[in-house]
């Protein structure tokens, strides 16, 4: 399948999906680590893609998203942001709200 279509389908079929370097258990980048940690505190289940194991996604997602760096968090098909935005939202409580809403719409 065309990689852009594959990415689109992946983002749209997972209510919460994190593209990161490494995995939540074994992150391989400080920014990915902090973002995954923040997401784990919400208690919600989320999908993730280790872009280090998917060079095609690592190369093409930045073009798809118009966003050059990782991690990238998507909720309900929308880019929420990278590490800075997610941590900011974690600190002011917005992340929990957003994730709770996404989990509800999924149920």
């Amino acid at each position, binding site marked *: 399948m065309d990689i852009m279509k594959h990415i689109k389908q992946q983002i749209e079929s997972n209510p919460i999906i994190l593209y990161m370097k490494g995995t939540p258990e074994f992150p391989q980048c400080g*920014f990915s680590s902090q973002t995954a940690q923040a997401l784990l505190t919400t208690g919600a289940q989320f999908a993730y893609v280790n872009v280090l194991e998917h060079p095609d996604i690592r190369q093409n997602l*930045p073009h798809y998203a*118009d*966003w*050059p*760096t990782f991690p990238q968090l998507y909720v309900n098909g929308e*880019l*929420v*942001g*990278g*590490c*800075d*935005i997610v941590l*900011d939202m974690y600190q002011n409580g917005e992340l929990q709200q957003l994730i709770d809403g996404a989990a509800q719409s999924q149920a």
Partner: protein
Amino acid sequence: MNTEQIKHLIEAHLTDAQVIIRGDDEVHFEAIVISPDFIGKTRVQQHRLVYAALGENFGNQSIHALALSTHTPEAWQQRSGG
């Protein structure tokens, strides 16, 4: 890439941008950007504007990471307790 180069690129692409930037190793940076261009935009859109100003410097690894904080002039003034 040094902090001055990044500062200039951002200033060249955003209206009346104020850029506070730090970086010790020429590939990892931390920046605070204040510009009226951010008014009415989401944070994702604000960050995209800054990324667009920096163009291919991410793709070609001139910049490995940029910790970014974007603010409208009004929000920045409130934040700094004006």
